[in-house]
C-alpha cells in the first residue's frame, strides 16, 4: 500500500462520512481530535472503516491520541500495522 493512497482514502472517508461532504479544505494536517472532528463515537466508526477498507485491526496499545492527531498520523499507523 502506498501512503498517498491511504491518505486519499482516509481523506475521502472523513470529508464525506464524518463532515457530511460539505467541506473543502480538509487536508492531512487538519487536527482531527483537537477540532472535535473525531470524537468518541466517530472513533468507533473510524476504526471499523479502517478494518473494512484496509483489512487491518489496530492493536489496543496503538489506540492513543498521538496516532490520531491528523490524517498523516493515522496513515502511518495503518502502514506500520500492515507489516
Amino acid at each position, binding site marked *: 500500500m502506498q501512503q498517498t493512497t491511504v491518505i486519499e482514502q482516509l481523506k475521502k472517508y472523513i470529508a464525506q462520512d464524518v463532515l457530511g461532504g460539505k467541506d473543502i479544505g480538509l487536508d492531512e494536517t487538519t487536527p482531527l481530535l483537537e477540532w472535535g472532528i473525531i*470524537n*468518541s463515537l466517530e472513533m*468507533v466508526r473510524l*476504526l471499523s472503516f479502517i478494518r473494512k477498507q484496509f483489512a487491518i485491526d489496530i492493536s*489496543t496499545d496503538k489506540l*492513543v491520541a498521538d496516532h490520531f492527531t491528523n490524517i498523516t498520523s493515522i496513515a502511518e499507523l495503518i502502514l506500520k500495522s500492515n507489516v
Partner: protein
Amino acid sequence: MILRDLVIQSAQKLPDALAVKGPDTSLTYGELDHLANRFAHALAQLGVRRGDRVGIWLEKSACAVAAMQGVLRLSAIYIPLDPLSPAVRIRTIVQDCDMRALVTTQRRAQAVLTDDLQDVAYLCLDDEGSVSHWDDLPTTGQQEPALADDIAYILYTSGSTGKPKGVSISNRNALAFVEWASQALQAGTTDRFANHAPFHFDLSVLDLYVAFHAGAATYLIPDQVAYIPEHLVTFLIQEAITVWYSVPSVLILMMEQGGLLDVPSLCLRAILFAGEAFPIKHLRRLYDHCNPGEGRDASGPYMTGNKLPIESPALPVRFFNLYGPTETNVCTSYEVTHLPESWNKPVPIGNACSGDRVWAQKEDGTLAQPGEAGELMVIGPTVMVGYWGQPAYGDKPYATGDLVQLLDDGNYVYIGRRDQMVKVRGHRIELGDIEAALEDHPAIHEAAVIVTGTGLAARLVAFVVHANQTSPSLLEVKRHCAEHLPRYMIVDEVHTIAALPRTRNGKIDRFTLLHHI
C-alpha cells in the same frame, strides 16, 4: 471533619492500601499522603495561603489527585481545569477567580502565560509528574486550620452569556454528599471504584472521595481508554471494578460497541449513572444482564411467597440513578429495581438524598401535587456556597431550572428544561456560551445553536448569519470553536442562513430552525 481528612484518616489506618491507580503511577494512601504534603509545601513556597485559588490543569493522573489534596492541606481552594480546554478559556477562569497559582506542565503554562496574568505563580511538573526540587520538600504534615464552611473547590460550568461560572463548593457541601453516598453504597476497603468523569466534572467527586472515605482504591480511566468502548470493558474486567459511575451514554456505548453484555461475570456490585436520562430499553438490558433470574416472576425479585429463591444469584448488582446540577451536587437518587414491562416513563430521578429537601414548584408558586409538574427546588447541605465573585447564595432554595413531574409514589421524573441549557452526552452546555463564541468570529454576524437527536445521536447544529459575503466553512468554524471552547462544545454542523427566525417577542425561534436542516 473536613474534606481533606478523608485521605489523612485512611493514610493513618491503611497506609499500604492502594488509593489511586492512574495512567502515570499508583499511589498507596501513605504515598498519596506524602505527595500531598509535598505539593502543599511547594505551593506554600509560591505564596499560596488559606482561601487562595489554585488551578490544576493536568491530564487525568494520580499526581493531579495528590495536587488537589495538597491544595486542601493549605486550606486553599482547588479548581480542576479541563485538560482539553483551550488556553483562552483557561485564561478567562484564571481571571474570574483571581487565581494565585496554577499547577500544570511547562507546555501548558507557556500557552496560558500572557502579560496580563503576571500575578499567577506556576508550579510546573515534568513528564514524570514531579517538580525539580521535589526531593528537598518534606513529606510530613503541612496543614493550615480550616472550617467546614470554607470553600474546598470550584467547578466551572458553561455560562449562558459565554463566560464560565464558578460553582463554589464548601467542605460541608461536599461531605454531605460523600457521607450519604458512602452509606447508600456501603462502600468498603475492598471496593475498587472506576473514575470515568474528568475531575472538572462533578461526577468525579464520588469516585475520589467516597473511595477515600472507605479506604478503597480508585482507578482513573485514561483518555485513550475512555475513547474506545472495547477498552472500557477490558478496563472494567482487568481492574476488577466493583463500583462504576458514568453518564448513561458511556454505558450504552459499552453495551453496543464494547461487548459489555458478552462478559458473563463481572466484579461489579454497583452501577451509578447521572447527567442524562438512561433510556429504559438499554437500562433494562443492562439490569437484566447483571441480575439474571431476578424479576422473571412477576411477584418480586428473588423470593416468591415462602418458596426458595428461583435461582440463587450472586450478590445483586445495585443500580442508582443520581440527579443534581453542579450547584447542588447530588440532591436526589433513585435505586432502580426490576422495571416492569408496563413502565412507560423515563427512569425516575427519585427523591431527596444527601440530607437535602426537594420539591416541585408550579408556575404560580404553589407545590405540585402527585401527577403535576413543576420546577425542582432544592434546599440543604449540598447546595453550593454560591458562584465565585457573586454574593453567597445563603439559605435560599436553589431553583434547578429542571422541570419534573411528581409521581404517586413520591418520586420525581425529569421532563425537561426551562431554559436553553442542554445536555449532550452528559455534558451540560449553555447554548448561549457556544453562540457567544461563534459571534466572536469575524465572518459571523449572528449565530444560534440547537441540539438535534438524543442520547448518542445528539448533535450540536449551528445556524450562522454571515457578516460579509463569505460564509466560513465547517472546518473553519470547528477550528474557531476549538480555540475558544471545551472540546465537547465544538459544533457538529453549520448552516448558513439569511436571518435568524424570531418569535413575536424577539427571541430566537429554535423550533423553526429545526426545519431549516
